[in-house]
């Protein structure tokens, strides 16, 4: 039997690069290394997670007691809008992109993504988009139309100036996601190591493949909706102008045709992480791996046909209501299959409970609660009561916090040793876990009750005699627990990066390719070519006699892409195009900014395609 240390049998080869790598800040600005871009995405996601949490904390203070006036009217609406926009687009999605960037190539045994410079371009458009949305608070006001941006509340007549920053930032984020989607679809389908058939692709990489399809195909409708909004606000088009015959349902259809697949974009990667973590700490294979994969694919497909369940109260008519209610109920089946297979993985294992496992096991019941309340919402007659009430708020926080975020936390504790070569502190991690689990339930469980008691969402105040005081106070108290837990994790990350225990290649006795290589992995990922015989290639090496350790490559065999400024240049051009349109309202001459941006894009792309890589 081989041990993982045997993989370090030779000197790491020197790889071939067209231009020698830069160092320091220039390296980070021009890198095309999927691992560095992954770290950039992940760090940005963590940063915005803290900001989004702070926004939640502020409006929970306003709601702690009835009739308060800390944040009223559009101050409150702005905080709510930015909390959701930040959490969905700027925290969870980039954290997912971080994992996707860092680990998908490692998991499938590739040297990088299919288009490394395009990957850097995605990162920059994301960064610029996040900055544009948040610049609203500096130059205007926070957008106050809700993260769903329903027209006509988002139009010039009724929406505030922050909505301009909102559409502009979201258009950049949409470009970033669509480009990344195409890039990763190609990477996962085409760049797998020898022997890694589709059914041997790790579940996390599989879920990433599904969401990249969802990103590539679901963002265009909302991009079109945002373009309409921009034309209405800036050029006087009448898409959402009801006085001109415009229909408020148009935006909702375009938005939710994106918005519902987006929900699966947020949850599927965490399901993937849980599917990676559980087998490692149960010391047995994922139960029904194919069923888990196919149910994820099925969820992705059906996810495109259920968007109308966000519109049961909108008045689509009973036939549309019935169709969407039925398709939505179907989603419960593959979701249940996943949950049962995770239980099957635990059953008969030999379980240990380090921090990543704690988050992964608590994911199961917490996500189940969110899923089961989702079954309630799928019931259209019942949803007429629950829609836009706190019951829905409870539902999607169980799914997104209990599900998506806990899965990502599990991933952070699980993969941190691979990224940094150091272990995170177990003690601090356990404190984080318990504080977070407690806080989450203290905050979100009573919100079910609030919804039952008729409290609508997005209201900045409530009367003292409505019977909502106790639950709201709990909702505010719990946030402090969650905040404390999350800050502990951040502290843990910073201290462990310096002082953590050395991790080695395979600290968890794991199964998949990423644990074969060094921690952190070298720029070229693998010194050798991994050959894959099952869905657990590293497990095979560790537990079978007849598998030879692969031979390292000669230096000249490995070609790596060189650093490039061009992604930054082209993304800056795209930013200028959007900024010009955004600022057009201030002075008509500012369209010249857009022209300058377009020229930058054209020249940048020419240089991009002609520079040697």
């Amino acid at each position, binding site marked *: 039997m081989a041990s993982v240390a045997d993989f370090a049998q030779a000197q790491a080869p020197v790889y071939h690069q*067209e231009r020698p790598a830069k160092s320091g800040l220039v390296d980070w600005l021009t890198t095309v290394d999927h691992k560095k871009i992954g770290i950039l995405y992940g760090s940005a996601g963590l940063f915005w997670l803290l900001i989004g949490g702070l926004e939640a904390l502020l409006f929970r203070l306003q709601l702690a007691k009835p009739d308060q006036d800390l944040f009223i009217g559009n101050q409150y609406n702005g905080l709510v809008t930015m909390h959701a926009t930040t959490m969905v687009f700027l925290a969870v999605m980039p954290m997912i992109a971080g994992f996707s960037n860092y680990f998908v*190539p490692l998991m499938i*045994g*590739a*040297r*990088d993504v*299919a*288009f*490394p*410079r395009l990957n850097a371009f995605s990162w920059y458009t994301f960064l610029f988009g996040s900055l544009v949305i948040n610049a609203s608070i500096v130059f205007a006001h926070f957008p106050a139309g809700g993260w769903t941006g329903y027209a006509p509340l988002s139009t010039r007549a009724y929406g505030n100036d922050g909505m301009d920053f909102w559409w502009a930032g979201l258009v950049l984020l949409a470009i970033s996601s*669509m480009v990344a989607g*195409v*890039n990763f*679809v*190609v990477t996962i*389908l*085409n*760049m*797998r190591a*020898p*022997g*890694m*058939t589709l059914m041997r692709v790790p579940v996390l990489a599989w879920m990433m493949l599904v969401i990249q399809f969802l990103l*590539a*195909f679901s*963002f*265009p*409708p909302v*991009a*079109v909706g945002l373009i*309409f909004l921009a*034309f209405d606000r800036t*050029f*006087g*088009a*009448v*898409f959402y102008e009801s006085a*001109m*015959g*415009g*229909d408020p349902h*148009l935006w909702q259809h*375009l938005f939710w045709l994106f918005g519902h697949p987006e929900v699966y974009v947020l949850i599927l990667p965490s399901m993937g992480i849980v599917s990676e973590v559980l087998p490692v700490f149960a010391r047995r294979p994922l139960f029904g791996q194919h069923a888990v994969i196919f149910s994820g694919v099925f969820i992705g497909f059906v996810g495109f046909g259920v968007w109308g369940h966000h519109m049961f109260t909108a008045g689509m008519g009973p036939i549309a209501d019935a169709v969407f209610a039925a398709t939505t109920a179907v989603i419960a089946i593959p979701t249940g299959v996943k949950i049962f297979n995770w239980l099957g993985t635990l059953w008969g294992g030999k379980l240990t409970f380090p921090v990543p496992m704690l988050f992964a096991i608590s994911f199961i019941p917490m996500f189940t609660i969110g899923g089961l309340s989702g079954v309630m919402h799928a019931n259209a007659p019942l949803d007429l009561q629950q829609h836009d009430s706190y019951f829905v708020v409870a539902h999607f926080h169980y799914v997104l916090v209990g599900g998506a975020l806990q899965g990502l936390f599990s991933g952070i504790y699980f993969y941190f040793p691979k990224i940094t070569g150091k272990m995170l502190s177990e003690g601090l991690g356990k404190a984080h876990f318990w504080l977070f689990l407690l806080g989450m339930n203290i905050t979100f469980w009573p919100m079910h009750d609030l919804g039952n008691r008729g409290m609508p969402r997005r209201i900045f105040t409530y009367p003292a005699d409505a019977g909502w005081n106790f639950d709201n106070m709990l909702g505010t108290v719990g946030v402090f627990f969650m905040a404390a837990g999350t800050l502990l994790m951040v502290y843990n990350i910073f201290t462990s990066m310096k002082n953590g225990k050395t991790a080695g290649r395979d600290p968890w006795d794991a199964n998949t390719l990423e644990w074969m290589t060094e921690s952190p992995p070298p720029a070229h990922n*693998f010194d050798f*070519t*991994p*050959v894959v*015989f099952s869905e657990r290639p590293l497990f095979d090496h560790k537990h079978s006699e*007849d*598998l030879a350790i692969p031979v390292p490559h000669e230096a000249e*065999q*490995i*070609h790596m*892409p060189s650093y490039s400024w061009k992604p930054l240049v082209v993304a800056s051009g795209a930013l200028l195009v959007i900024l010009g349109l955004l600022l057009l309202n201030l002075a008509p001459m500012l369209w010249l900014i857009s022209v300058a941006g377009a020229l930058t894009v054209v020249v940048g*792309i*020419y240089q*991009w*395609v*002609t520079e040697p*890589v």
Partner: protein
Amino acid sequence: MSAELATADGHLPDAGHDAGHGDHGHVSAENNFLGLPNIKLAMWAFLGSECMFFGSLIGTYFFYHGKSLAGPLPNQVFSIAITSISTFLLLMSSMTMALAVDATRLKRLSSARTYILATAALGATFVGFQVYEFSQFVEEGLKLSTSLFGSTFFVMTGFHGAHVTVGVIWLTMLSIMISNGKLNKERSPITVESAGLYWHFVDIVWIVIFTFVYLLEFIK
């Protein structure tokens, strides 16, 4: 345990064939698990995404069809004669594009460049027709802000025109790259074919728009 290897040579896929234009751009067996080069697979995924984009634009046009509260109406402004000419030119450009792809396969770069420039010129003429058409419509009282028809029509066809413009720039770049030797004979088939995929897609979108938006107005 039997080895069911998809690729026998046991080499990791190299990174860095990004956009397919580098000097190292050989697309070999090790780089295409599915048997399709990265760049082509990416084009197909991108065009799928574009289908959703134009699907939403065209879908909105029909969602609002007949709901405008103010004139002029489509059949009052459309000029089938003029649009038929521009449609014909765009169709012809698909032919020259196909000839360009063919020429790169035969390693005849200079004739490929001629066809590419012809395609770009036809595309540019189409955009010129569109500018003329838009200005005619505005003269007849149809503006972006006039009605739902104005908003949906101008934004839908405008974004199509923008796509044609992007294609023209793309093709111009390719012809420059052939001239200054940045695009060699090895690389040119896949590169020009990718541009061709995009060009044909944009062309097909126009056929859909011309048929369902223009022609259907006059079948009554």
